[in-house]
């Protein structure tokens, strides 16, 4: 393997995969650098898991090319398996084994890697190492799954929805761990449908919808691409129908206005000028304000702008 081939941790070209009734992945191209933390972002059913499982060599693509660490699955599966750390969505590890027994089992499959106790310490399960897996909390189980992905000292870590279903505290704990791996220079490909997770952890994200990548870049670039730093949302009760939306569009610093279900959503560049102007305009039109919210633009807003849907709607 040449150094040049190794510089790209992952190359995916024109990937396609269809199941009986649905096209799950529809022409995806991706490229990841070594040491990068890359996020596949999108609603459920967008094709994230199928894409990551094809990259993991668990699902065969209908067409397209996948190169992981400069190797291909059909030629170098054995070597690749030794160098990848994989955490799947919804794996239930055997409930009757202890934490230590589980990690030891997974460790036995890899030629190289840290000591069992070391990995357990890394995911902060020392105190639980003799507990049965069945007695662990959701967050602890997820950290154990992470430990099983780390036992081979992987060059490349695949995390499929690592924090789905966890409470906020457990999520934050897991984020801290993933950030540690980033600092240690590991390459990470993760999927998530949490915007905040992607914004916090990922160097770059690809937003997927209906099997296609609809946006690609750093979270900052993507947010900047919608051309607004802030979002203003307000409700005006039943009076919203009478509202003259075009007047709102003329307000200085307002980029886009969208009215739906009795509430209005505006993309705004200069919040401090737009909000007073909005309030003036509403009182001029005699529309009573029932709710007003503003927040900084996020990846969620990028998704909404691109698709007209909320991620959580799915």
């Amino acid at each position, binding site marked *: 393997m040449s150094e040049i081939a190794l510089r790209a941790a992952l190359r995916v070209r024109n990937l396609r995969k269809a199941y009986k009734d649905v096209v799950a992945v529809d022409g995806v191209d991706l490229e990841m650098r070594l040491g990068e933390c890359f996020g596949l972002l999108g609603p459920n059913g967008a094709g994230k898991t199928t894409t990551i499982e094809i990259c*993991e*060599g*668990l699902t065969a693509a209908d067409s397209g090319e996948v190169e992981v660490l400069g190797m291909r699955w059909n030629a170098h599966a*054995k070597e690749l*398996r*030794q160098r*990848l750390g*994989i955490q*799947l969505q*919804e*794996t*239930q*590890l*055997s409930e*009757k*084994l202890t934490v230590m*027994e589980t990690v*030891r*089992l*997974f*460790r*036995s*499959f*890899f*030629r*190289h*890697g840290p*000591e069992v106790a070391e990995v357990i310490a890394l995911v902060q399960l020392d105190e639980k190492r003799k507990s049965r897996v069945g007695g662990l909390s959701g967050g602890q189980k997820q950290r154990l799954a992470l430990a*099983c992905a780390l036992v*081979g000292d992987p060059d490349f870590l695949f995390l499929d929805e690592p924090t789905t279903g966890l409470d906020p505290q457990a999520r934050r704990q897991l984020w801290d761990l993933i950030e540690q791996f980033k600092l240690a220079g590991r390459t990470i490909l993760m999927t998530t449908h949490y915007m905040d997770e992607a914004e916090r952890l990922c160097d770059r994200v690809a937003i997927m919808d209906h099997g296609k990548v609809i946006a690609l870049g750093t979270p900052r670039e993507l947010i900047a691409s919608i051309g607004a730093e802030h979002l203003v949302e307000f409700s005006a009760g039943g009076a919203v129908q009478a509202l003259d939306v075009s007047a709102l569009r003329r307000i200085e610093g307002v980029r886009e206005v969208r009215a739906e279900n009795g509430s209005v959503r505006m993309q705004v560049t200069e919040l401090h000028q737009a909000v007073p102007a909005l309030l003036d305009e509403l009182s001029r039109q005699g529309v009573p304000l029932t709710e007003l919210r503003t927040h900084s633009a996020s990846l969620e807003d990028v998704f909404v702008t691109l698709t007209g849907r909320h991620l959580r709607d799915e």
Partner: protein
Amino acid sequence: MSNTTWADGPLVQLTLVRFREFWREPEAIFWVFVFPVLLAAGLGLAFRNRPPDVLKVAAVTPELARSLRQEKLLDVERLSAPAAEEALRTGKVALLAAPGPGGAVVYRYDDTNPEGRTARMLADRAIERAAGRADPVASSDRLMREPGSRYIDFLLPGLLGMNLMGSAIWGMGFAIVDARRKKLMKRLVATPMPRHYYLLSFVLARLLLLVVEVGVLLGFGAWVFQVPVRGSIPDLAVLCVLGSLAFSALGLLIASRAKTIEAASGLMNTAMMPMWIVSGVFFSAQRFPGVLQPMIRALPLTAVIDALRANMLQGANLAQVAPQLGVLGAWLVVCFTLALKLFRWR
């Protein structure tokens, strides 16, 4: 990596997992070890050979009573005629002996009741001998109550065969389908684990548990009921191992695609239920009509049980059970080949 030992190898670890999952499941222990012993104990007690029963008879006169008491197998009671009638009618005695006209004896009994007929024979013999009859042919009895020909001797190899089948098919089927259902199998496939090690770990664990399983049941039979093992122990071991492998292959085939425990249970019961009935666990498979016999003989459980009975009760060697070995070998090869073709890792 400094203190890696042989125990850190993937095959050892996978096999250890099988053991741990088994030992930590109290129900599994019960069904594999305790249940067959309980069944053997219960049926062995229920169908034990009783000492010959002493039959109760009534005599109306003291002379008749005295004559009848010569017979050890009769328990004679002197009763008045009405009391004797009452005792006969209510089944307290099997026979009533009363004097008839002209020094004759009248026996009253129910000739549809075997006890009545036996009592009639014994009573008549006693009275005729008391009256001076000599037997023209001298005879003597030599009694046979040997281990090896009782029901428990027939039953134990049957239970052993049934246990070999159940533990192999359940052990294989549930564990594999459960791992597939929980996506644990998919997770293992995502590691560098050699896939054949995964299947091999089941076989290894099964063979090691087999030693305990067979030992417990045979030990119990030998200790409590003196059930013999007349054939050679190595031959018996070969039979158990081959049987267990054949059933494991069947279990693997059943579990090769099923995605839910319910589906797997249905398939396992469908496979095992007919064999529980026709393969001669509790009664001889010969009782089924002749046309069915070739089919029944071709079932793996029939083959195992027949071979075990031949070894334990008749002391047969492996050559003498070659047809059964052939049946088991065929099931092993066919099921295993099919299972490997059909097996899904996710």
